[in-house]
């Protein structure tokens, strides 16, 4: 790694994380050689399109990669000094929820339809803390109030189907925050929600983060959501990190041709866009990755070197940025030309 980002020690250190899945079609290279640090209180956005490995990389942090067919082939995930790769299921119990919690895109599948929501949130306390039912229910209602659910005392006795999509996501956030984790992983938390509800949820997460000082890993494909909340950005393509750096620098001058292509692909809300500049082709099959740089078949700058050798993340611009591209220094004027 290059120049240190911060003086303090990271909460989480991921090094060379490689996750594979054995499937009938062959070996799926879900995540390859992924390395990053996460510091207390910051928001790291892991950004990528479908199949980029962003969700699997998050599941690995929670010990949720199904094994088999999945396996962590190599690498390490260190949470304040404790190695998480290869941890026994029993030891995960003290980490999941307690130290690292996660919310998902679809809250309905994560809620049990036959129990009142307050009971489900309270369950966290009953399992992890020795407190009684009544006390657990009271604390659940408190949390529901904290995440902005009106009439929390009454609504704690209602069932998941009685809540709207946005309210269900609030319930999941309440559940995730119950034990005051140090890291919250949010995997596409607003993708299933309408844009006005998305704004409510992102505001809530920012509020809670300010109050609790937790670190947030935001997994998303949405360049707009990332711009509004992230401190740092990590862009994944075909299972690998292709660019990482401070959000402001990244948006001002994306370094990787893929990241530049993404910026050219999105129309703007506040200004006219002449013609979109899409990335040609489509993402590679994760079973059969291209040789060399995985992006080379879609890249206007690719040459023989790119087709045969794989670029590693190297320092780009000032010390805070890293880009995995042999051509990263090509002047901007030459980029995005099909």
């Amino acid at each position, binding site marked *: 790694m290059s120049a240190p980002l911060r003086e303090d020690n990271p909460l989480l250190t991921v090094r060379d994380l490689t996750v594979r899945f054995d499937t009938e079609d062959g070996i799926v290279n879900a995540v390859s050689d992924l390395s990053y640090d996460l510091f207390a209180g910051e928001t790291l956005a892991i950004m990528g399109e479908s199949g980029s490995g962003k969700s699997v990389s998050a599941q690995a942090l929670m010990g949720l990669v199904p094994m088999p067919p999945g396996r962590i082939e190599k690498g390490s995930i260190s949470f304040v000094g404790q190695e998480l790769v290869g941890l026994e299921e029993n030891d995960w119990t003290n980490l999941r929820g307690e130290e690292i919690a996660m919310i998902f895109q679809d809250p309905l599948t994560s809620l049990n339809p036959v129990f009142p929501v307050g009971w489900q949130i309270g369950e966290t306390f009953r399992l992890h803390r020795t407190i009684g039912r009544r006390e657990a229910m009271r604390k659940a209602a408190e949390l529901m109030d904290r995440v902005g659910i009106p009439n929390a005392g009454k609504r704690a006795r209602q069932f998941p189907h009685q809540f709207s999509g946005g309210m269900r996501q609030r319930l999941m956030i309440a559940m995730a925050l119950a034990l005051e984790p140090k890291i919250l992983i949010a995997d596409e938390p607003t993708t299933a929600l309408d844009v006005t509800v998305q*704004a409510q949820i*992102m505001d809530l997460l920012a509020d809670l983060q300010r109050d609790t000082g937790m670190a947030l890993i935001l997994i998303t494909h949405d360049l707009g959501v990332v*711009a*509004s909340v992230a401190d740092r950005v990590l862009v994944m393509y075909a299972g690998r990190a292709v660019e990482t750096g401070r959000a402001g620098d990244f948006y001002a001058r994306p370094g990787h041709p893929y990241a530049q292509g993404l910026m050219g692909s999105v129309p*703007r809300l506040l200004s006219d866009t002449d013609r979109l500049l899409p990335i040609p082709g*489509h993402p590679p099959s994760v079973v059969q990755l291209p040789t060399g740089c995985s992006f080379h078949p879609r890249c206007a700058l690719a040459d023989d070197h790119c087709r045969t050798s794989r670029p590693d993340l190297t320092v780009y611009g000032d010390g805070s940025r890293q880009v995995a591209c042999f051509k990263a220094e090509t002047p901007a004027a030459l980029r995005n030309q099909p």
Partner: protein
Amino acid sequence: MTPPLLDVQGLVKHYPPEGFLGGGTVQAVSGIDLTIEAGQTHGLVGESGCGKSTVARTVMRLEKPTGGRALFEGDDLFTMNRRRMRSVRRDMQIIFQDPFASLNPRMTVRSIIEEPWKIHGGVGASERSDAGDELLRKVGLSPEHANRYPHQFSGGQRQRIGIARALALNPKLIVCDEPVSALDVSIQAQIVNLLQEIQEERGLSYLFIAHDLAVVRHISDVVSVMYLGKIVETGTRDEIYGSPAHPYTKALLSAVPEPDPIIEASRSRTVLEGDVPSPVDPPSGCRFRTRCAHATEVCATEEPVLSDPGVGHMVACHHAEVAVSL
């Protein structure tokens, strides 16, 4: 003056209560007007449940309307006889959000795109193969793809097949129902560009239905904003995005994050409270009043009609003059 290509007047679509538990009638679309001129793109935006897809399906006669008229080149689609309908169907095509669900998995791409010609004619059997290749090239696929099946394609390619099929009969109008929302960002842009190129070349019209406000801005000439079965604001693209007057339009626009941290840091956001009410029992008067910061007594008792409050375009709000200045 020639009539607009499509002129929807007072369209109403209700769904009867479902299941033995009853429930009420779902008022999906409650009287909307909408016109599309030849060569134009009319963007219809709104959040889930606002009725925008129901408008598309009803105009295409995939659903039976409860009330209203939809004039296509002056003829009412809802009352015309079968024979006229059959010929109008050539002129109106639809593409869907999920191209996989709308392509028959047992048909090759060639038979999918040639099927419209088998039904409606237009291209003789001997010329179909060449015409099919030509269509595939038009949408950015190659003739070698013709003998494959839908599952052998990626999402973006499937949407291209859907577009090729829609283009086969050289329609005057294509209804695009969330055509890019299931696609990855990098693929979305390819499809948006393709739709624009086709329009420039053939001069056809689009009714473009989407929840992505930035995409709608990019592709539309005219934009209508729907909320709970009603159009609350309609105008040119620049009017809606440049000087929105309805409190809902303003809130909607302010909720969309722009992919630029510098702009984001300086924007103020109007966060709407609460959720969209149920279309089974919509609020009296103005349907947006339960979430509106400007709502007063009149909003509960009187339904606002679309009119120009002095901004140059149509807004359905009792307090639009106030809202504009905020």
